[in-house]
């Protein structure tokens, strides 16, 4: 069972603890270890560390690992500037907005930061997104007349996809090591050996308000939170694998496009892992 942890597809950077990146909310980062880089007080590495908690909501991977952070610096003491870049000029504006807004919140919450500026570079909607986030205007006001609501529903939809993909990441090693498929429906989260994918799955479920404690079933419907019944198990596992394949293939195309667009790697970018 110890092989499970080496199969994680999105290992955090080596200077982080074993836990997965936290959600981009100030409260969730309270216990995060500082980067041990020898500096005391506020520095770019602390900002980067905060950015590692910001995810691409569509791909469910940190924006740092994906290579989206082009620059991160203190222009003046306490004044943080982050420059983000995406694989294409036409990446979906709603997801782009969420990443810029989350980066803004994450950096602003770093102790000692007074002013935060997040700039999305070379995107068709750069002006609307950068201006809207700086003004804390919300999505609908940033795209006046083109959007009717905020992005909470969109974020939740994609968190549910992350839960499905994470279910495959947790279940596949269990099945490979001999757990009978039918037995999965009876397992709780606490009965699964510890691993990074398991931590990640629990965290995504908690973010959605779904059961995430040790006594919660391993397999649940991410829409309702209800346990998956044995007769629904084969289809559930199929969907979980399909969703994981989709997310990973998308991530892989995004990385290829980014590499074509920009010669240099992003800050704290990770190279792509094999899918299995």
């Amino acid at each position, binding site marked *: 069972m110890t092989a499970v942890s080496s199969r994680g597809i999105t290992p955090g950077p080596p200077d982080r603890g074993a836990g997965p990146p936290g959600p981009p909310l100030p409260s969730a980062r309270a216990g995060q270890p500082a980067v041990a880089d020898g500096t005391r007080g506020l520095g770019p590495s602390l900002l980067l560390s905060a950015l590692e908690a910001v995810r691409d909501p*569509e791909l469910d991977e940190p924006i740092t690992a994906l290579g989206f952070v082009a620059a991160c610096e203190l222009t003046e003491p306490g004044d943080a500037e982050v420059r983000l870049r995406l*694989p*294409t*000029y*036409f*990446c*979906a*504006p*709603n997801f782009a907005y969420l990443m810029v807004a989350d980066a803004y919140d994450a950096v602003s919450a770093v102790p000692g930061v007074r002013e935060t500026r997040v700039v999305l570079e070379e995107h*068709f909607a750069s002006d609307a997104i950068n201006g809207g986030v700086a003004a804390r205007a919300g*999505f*609908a006001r940033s*795209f006046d*007349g*083109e*959007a*009717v*609501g*905020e*992005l909470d*529903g*969109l974020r939740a*939809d994609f968190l549910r*996809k992350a839960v*499905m993909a994470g279910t*495959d990441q947790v*279940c*596949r*090693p269990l*099945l*490979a090591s001999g757990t009978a*498929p039918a037995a999965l429906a009876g397992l709780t989260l606490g009965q699964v050996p510890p691993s990074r994918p398991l931590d990640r799955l629990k965290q995504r479920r908690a973010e959605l308000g779904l059961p995430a404690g040790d006594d919660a079933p391993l397999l649940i419907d991410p829409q309702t939170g209800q346990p998956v019944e044995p*007769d629904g*198990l*084969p*289809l559930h*596992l*199929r*969907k*979980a*694998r*399909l*969703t994981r*394949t*989709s997310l*990973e*293939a*998308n991530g*892989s*195309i995004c990385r*290829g*496009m980014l*590499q*074509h*667009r920009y010669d240099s790697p992003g800050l704290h970018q990770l190279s792509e892992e*094999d*899918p*299995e």
Partner: protein
Amino acid sequence: MYQKDGEKYFVVDSHMHYWNAAPDNWVPGAEQYAKGWIECFHAYQGLGPPATHWTIEHFQKYSEDDLMKDVFEDGYVDVAVFQPTYLKEWYKEGFNTTERNALMGEKHPGKFVYNTRFDPRDGDEGLKTLAANVDRFGSKGVKLYTAEWNNGSRGYKLSDPAAYRYLDKAQELGIKNVHVHKGPTIWPLDKDAFDVSDIDHCATDFPDLNFIVEHVGLPRIEDFCFMATQEPNVYAGLSVVIGGLMHARPKFFAKVMGELLFWVGEDKMTFGSDYGIWEPRWQIEGFVDWDYPGDEFSDYPRLGTAGKKKILGLNAAKLYGIEVPAECQLPAEAGTPGAHEVLAGQPEEHAASGA
């Protein structure tokens, strides 16, 4: 036709283009969008083999001779389906229009199928244009780009009442095949622009139309597959899947193919090179040679020679009524069924054994 190991493959390139995206065609004031669009396409080409990469200048505007050589002479294609994309807010003459395609195609009789397009936001005028295009070009299919910008609107859904009005008209005019390409924007922008549930509604409400979802719904393969399993008139257009993954990311390509073969099945998958993003030659050669790279994919359906023949040409030939030479045809019932048949019969069957 492509021949390998004694097998003959009739090739229909069901998704390709003849565009002009050079600066002479950029709309003043919208240059950044015209430039951004073609640079984005060019980045996709970067996912193909390096020997097939073009300079950005060549990519912006290739000639008729280039196309004929790349697609037919070197590329093994028997019949190619032009899929127009207008983007007239960014490109003065359009990115690639039905007219531009047909002007070229009429010099090469029998080589091309001319699909046209519509935009449900164009009102009564658009309906007239659609009728005129079908009449003039004999179109049996339309290509719809739902993220197209139009007078301040950033896109539409196929389930919009206006879209239904156009689908009704298209069907009445004799259109059979609706190729759908999703993009990054729709109305409203706070919804997922790539969501395919609108196609699900249309496929149910227009059972006599075929809906070919280009790029297999990428980046929403999961939603697409699950929808396609339930709708008998939904097809998977493989453009971008082969071009973007087969060379650059072979393991992901294998997984995506495995999922498509399971959920959609080889009878409902169609090859499209997406030329000029990628040349067809390397895609066809690689696809005919392709198999899963290793045992870890053993729980996915296999793809044999019969299945490859269907995907490369026979399925699209059926959709468009293209005559296939006897030597390239398959006996009836050859190949492997997809999940809509398998899942129904074997509920205990599941995929998650082994990794």
